[in-house]
């Protein structure tokens, strides 16, 4: 009884933190699923914004039931995500990253200026709280399960081939375009889910919510956690939501800590922190071989460097 009581009081004290972690996990999944497929897209953040307005306004202005509003927001973003992937089909690596960042910033500008819909600089406020932590938790579980399936078996291997060597993949029957579209659409839907839940839980949306800072935050989560697996994205979401709260005392220095973490991980642990867990796990099961570390970092070669030679 004692432990249950202490767990529930710990939970009560930290509920907001948990909610934020779950929502950021969805956003981080959105970036990770694209990166793992070799798509350097940060459009998930733009869809976070679109999803938050769509769900928030449908619930607030149209009094739609929550579930319907969330589904509508996600489907809308799936469609827009697909259209964007068709539009950007020829872009790769850095060019794709820049184009999708531009998309995110454009969404912000539209939100700021379309006052009649979004409230412009005043934002959309007073959205009824209409989701529970449990709902979000279940969604994160479901999303994680879908992503786990996507990393395994035929589709898992295929997406790695698409990431590492598109031409080789084509020579083995892979319709590269379809796989990239799939990853793009899934990424858009996950971004939309994160935004929709954020709006419906924290009751207001500002046009500046999904700006450059959120792009950097989401990317940092994925890089620090590790883009090779959804577990990395989850770890990144936990660490980067939780640490800033623990370290409020360092205040303005946070950005510097953040940058330092990013540099250290990118330089020394390119597979992200999750790769340390994986390596440690294998070692403890006695399957460690000297090549593991090397392989870990090979697994983490960023998509931009996929020379495939």
């Amino acid at each position, binding site marked *: 009884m004692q432990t249950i009581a202490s767990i529930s009081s710990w939970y009560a004290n930290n509920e907001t933190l948990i909610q934020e972690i779950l929502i950021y996990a969805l956003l981080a999944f959105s970036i990770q699923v694209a990166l793992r497929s070799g798509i350097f897209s940060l459009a998930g953040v733009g869809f976070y914004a679109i999803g938050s307005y769509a769900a928030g306004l449908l619930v607030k202005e149209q009094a739609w039931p929550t579930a319907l509003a969330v589904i509508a927001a996600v489907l809308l973003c799936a469609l827009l995500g697909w259209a964007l992937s068709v539009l950007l089909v020829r872009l*790769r690596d850095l060019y794709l990253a820049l184009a999708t960042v531009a998309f995110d910033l454009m969404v912000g500008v539209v939100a700021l200026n379309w006052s009649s819909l979004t409230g412009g600089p005043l934002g959309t406020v007073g959205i009824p709280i209409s989701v529970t932590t449990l709902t979000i938790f279940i969604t994160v579980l479901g999303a994680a399960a879908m992503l786990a*399936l*996507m990393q395994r*078996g*035929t*589709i898992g*291997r*295929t997406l*790695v*081939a698409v990431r*590492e*060597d598109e*031409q*080789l*993949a*084509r*020579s*083995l*029957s*892979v*319709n*590269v375009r*379809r*796989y990239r579209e*799939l990853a793009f659409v899934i990424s858009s839907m996950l971004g939309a889910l994160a935004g929709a839940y954020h709006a419906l839980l924290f009751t207001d949306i500002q046009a500046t919510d999904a700006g450059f800072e959120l792009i950097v935050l989401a990317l940092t989560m994925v890089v620090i956690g590790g883009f090779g697996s959804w577990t990395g994205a989850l770890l990144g979401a936990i660490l980067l939501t939780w640490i800033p709260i623990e370290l409020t005392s360092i205040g303005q220095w946070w950005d510097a800590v953040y940058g330092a973490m990013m540099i250290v991980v990118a330089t020394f642990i390119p597979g992200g922190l999750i790769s340390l867990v994986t390596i440690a796990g294998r070692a403890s099961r006695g399957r460690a071989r000297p*090549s593991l570390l*090397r*392989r870990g970092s*090979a*697994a983490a*070669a960023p998509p931009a460097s996929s020379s*495939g*030679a």
Partner: protein
Amino acid sequence: MKDARVAFGGVRALDGVSLTVQDGQLLGLIGPNGSGKSTLLAAISRMIDLSSGTLTMEGRDYTNAPAHLANALGIARTFQTVRLLRTMSVLENVMLGAQAEWVRRGPLATWLWLSRARREEKRARRAAQQALERVGLKDLGRRHPQELPYGPARKVEIARALACEPKLLLLDEPTAGMSQAEREEVGILLSELSKDGLAQVLVEHDLAMIQRVCNRVVALNFGQVIAEGLPAQVAADELVREAYLGHRDAGMEASAPMMEIGRQ
């Protein structure tokens, strides 16, 4: 392939090449560096577009089909450089070939079709293991490509292409950099495949190997066919001797420049 032309800027990499390969035929493709051999394979496998000419496979025109459909028509290939994925085991690399048929169903089927997916996974694993055995690398499945010496790594690529169960196999200098013993093994393998009815195009600098295994040879120079016929005939041809054998001292046996065709 009929009257195929490919140009890169001003370079006419293929300049009106016509070529037919029959079932069970092992066609040797020779020519000096830069004569258009790799470009020819890239054209047949639809990695690059023809500027004119047509491609047919078993009577079907696929001149404008996307590259992944060329594989679906039964065309598999290896590349001039080692292109194995380092993040996967050797067996998984070969499974990329073995799963090709299933992959054609598209991403949604392979992602969500759970029980069928498990069956396919087992089948692909078995087929990949068989392909590895076929190239004589039975026990290397669990290794990673970067742990393999060059020769076995190249054999893994042949296994990957074979795992697609192709009707036409395109091999771009598969034995470059291999030891003499390994070359002979590959030669025997290719002859066996040919007896099984597989059509093959073999790009190869080693004329002895060509003479040993091929039943027809085409010589290219500057993107044009300069000789065609039985291996002995072509090797004796004046033009070929001039264009090709003249380069012998310039290091024909050395591995050719690492150039990738058609990468964007």
